[in-house]
């Protein structure tokens, strides 16, 4: 009974000492806390960006267009139902756009490649296409810049013939890409199919996700469509992997550097703070506190400081990371809660390390010497 009261009062004394120490020396405690918060906030912001930068940059890289192409092995049309099948297999994680091609002739016998596609989808897939006006109405055509120069003044309807069938189309806009598209005429899929009777021969897909995931999806698609050829666009995939890898490595090195610097500065600040209070500890020791108790007190104080700073720093850090995300990527960077335990652990460890050195120094010194001011 007696021992329990004693233990309880000892416990409450311990807590009281912890709280009073922080309250009475507010200025110094706040300075140490602030230093820890800065370090924790920077660590959180850098780690959050490191985790998220891949997702952010992948969105930018999807502007490069398709990274997977489905085509038949011999240039024939793909079965009609294939587009729907591919789209259900994507689970909304990508964009699939069909293309069909024939060589038609203009009125004066000039051969020209005519393509049929879904304009709304292509607008999203190939954002680099420089188009003066997208076709809206049936029988509207998008004309490559070189075809437009050849056909003369823009806006005049013209005829195209394929295997004896003729279609009259109105050019609504010109298309400029600097590649093969400049020499083609694009029609909407329904117009194209009712005119030529030819279905899509190529499906271009822009997958979002990691390289492994894309490779797995390619495998799945290939198994589901044995008659077709599913292949990655290596030009796009490889360059993306290279740049992402370099960016992540740069961010990681930056994160390590700044965390190490902030951590060491915190160490300097905290060591000073603990060392500064050697008189308090000398008094404690003089009135009978055991060395274990003083060490325990110091450790508990350091750990509490570290944990509190880590939580506040984490909150500040996610605000900084999301601000950077909004300014630079125009998209929020979601908080990564997986970072929190790492930050708390790191913060507590740094705080404890800061307490170890002064503790060791204090352990060797007689309280009388400290109290005498030596």
């Amino acid at each position: 009974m007696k021992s329990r009261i004693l233990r309880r009062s000892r416990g409450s004394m311990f807590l009281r000492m912890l709280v009073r120490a922080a309250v009475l020396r507010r200025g110094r405690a706040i300075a140490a806390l602030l230093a820890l918060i800065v370090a924790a906030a920077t660590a959180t912001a850098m780690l959050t960006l490191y985790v998220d930068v891949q997702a952010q940059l992948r969105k930018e890289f999807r502007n490069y267009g398709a990274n997977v192409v489905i085509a038949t092995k011999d240039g024939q049309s793909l079965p009609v139902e294939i587009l729907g099948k591919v789209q259900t297999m994507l689970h909304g994680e990508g964009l699939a756009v069909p293309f069909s091609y024939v060589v038609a002739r203009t009125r004066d016998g000039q051969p020209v490649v005519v393509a049929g596609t879904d304009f709304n989808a292509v607008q999203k897939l190939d954002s680099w296409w420089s188009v003066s006006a997208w076709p809206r109405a049936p029988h509207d055509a998008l004309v490559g810049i070189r075809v437009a120069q050849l056909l003369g003044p823009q806006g005049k309807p013209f005829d195209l013939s394929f295997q004896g069938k003729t279609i009259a189309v109105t050019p609504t806009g010109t298309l400029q890409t600097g590649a093969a598209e400049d020499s083609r005429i694009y029609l909407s899929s329904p117009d194209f199919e009712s005119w030529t009777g030819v279905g899509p021969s190529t499906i271009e897909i822009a997958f979002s996700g990691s390289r492994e995931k894309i490779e797995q999806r390619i495998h799945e698609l290939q198994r589901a469509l044995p008659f077709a050829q599913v292949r990655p666009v290596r030009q796009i995939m490889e360059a993306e992997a290279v740049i992402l890898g370099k960016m992540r490595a740069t961010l990681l090195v930056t994160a390590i550097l700044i965390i190490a610097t902030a951590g060491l500065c915190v160490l300097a600040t905290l060591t000073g703070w603990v060392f500064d209070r050697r008189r308090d500890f000398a008094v404690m020791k003089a009135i009978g506190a055991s060395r274990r108790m003083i060490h325990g007190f110091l450790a508990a104080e350091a750990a509490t400081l570290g944990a509190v700073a880590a939580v506040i720093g984490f909150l500040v850090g996610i605000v900084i990371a999301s601000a950077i995300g909004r300014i630079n990527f125009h998209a929020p960077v979601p908080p990564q809660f997986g970072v929190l335990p790492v930050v708390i652990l790191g913060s507590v460890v740094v705080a404890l390390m800061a307490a170890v050195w002064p503790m060791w120094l204090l352990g060797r010194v007689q309280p009388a010497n400290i109290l005498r001011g030596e």
Partner: protein
Amino acid sequence: MFLRLVYESFRRQKRRKLLAAIAVTLGAGVATAMIAVATDIGDKISRELRTYGANLVITPEEDTLEVEIGGLNLKPPSDGGYLNESDLPRIKGMFWRNNIVGFSPMLPVNVTVNGTSIPLLGTYFSKPLSFGKDKFAAGVRSTHPWWKVTGEWPGDDSQEVLVGEGLAAQLKLQTGDSLEVNHEKHRISGILTSGGIEDDQIVAPLSIAQQILGKPGAVRRVYVSAVTKPEDELARRDPASMSPEMRDRWYCSPYPQSIAFQLQEAIPHSHAKQIRQVAQNEGKVLSRIKGLMLLITISVLLASALAVSAAMATAMFERRTEVGLMKALGAGDVRVAALFFTEAMLLALIGGAIGFAWGALLARFIGRSIFDSEISIQPVLLPVILTIAGVVTFAGSAAAIRRAVKFDPVYALRGEA
């Protein structure tokens, strides 16, 4: 006396000085490395973005439409214009020649193999060329880095060819086999994987394609891979409508448009334009990455400034007994403050200089290990870093020094701070 005080202070308080100096050194080092990396990253990433391949294409000025589906060229071979192979080295004579990472001429022809028509692409692989005193290599190995060859790349003057993997599987060909193209035998030196239409083609040295076509020196188009600057308002304007100064500025900026313009000037009777898929997106990715690094650098600078100031403040605060003693001995506030500021500035200079050297090493390490190239440190950065270190140390110690100086010496000496 003043100098002796400073000297003794450094000699006797090694622990405190060391901690403060380490803080300043680390802060200055990280600042140096980050500024160097952030200023150079645009250039580094734009070189890396060249793995996307050519961003400009040169075609003959007078050309008929391309009639090409899935890589199969349906245009009669006699049709259309050609560029002259002998004009190509002039690309390396233009204003932005150092930004040209590589170029490859292309000449597609159709050939007969086993009675079927198959496309053959003539190009350079890595052909040594020279312009004036400049020596360089041009070819697909620099403009199409994603092309992978199992076996060996053919020599540019050899009679060897590459076969795309799709075609090789279809015709059951292997490296080392001989292939009869238009009744002439060629050794297959390797199998090409490109992930594009070339997988179903034969790729041969340019001279073989010219021979088949019967037009020596003819080139259908040239792909150019150039390091460019993201385009802005000025880049999109028509050079014909610009004032002379503005036109000079446009001409001397490595925009895709101005490099295309210069390519057109270098190669007679040609038309050069950007490949928008590569050129446009490159600018976007580049500006995002540069923006990210800029923001990160600013936050890192702020954070290390705060951390260093906190460390300095603590180091100063610990010494209020000393201040009390000096004041008790009759030193005025100004003299005490001057002493401490001199110490702080000395720390900032030493820490800043060591930190700069350390940061420069760090930046070199980052450049070497991540980008395989040097990140150069501008000497201008040294005074900048020293100034920053000085300001941060000053700001960090100012408050602590003020408090120490204001404090009554009696209390300070009694240890009742």
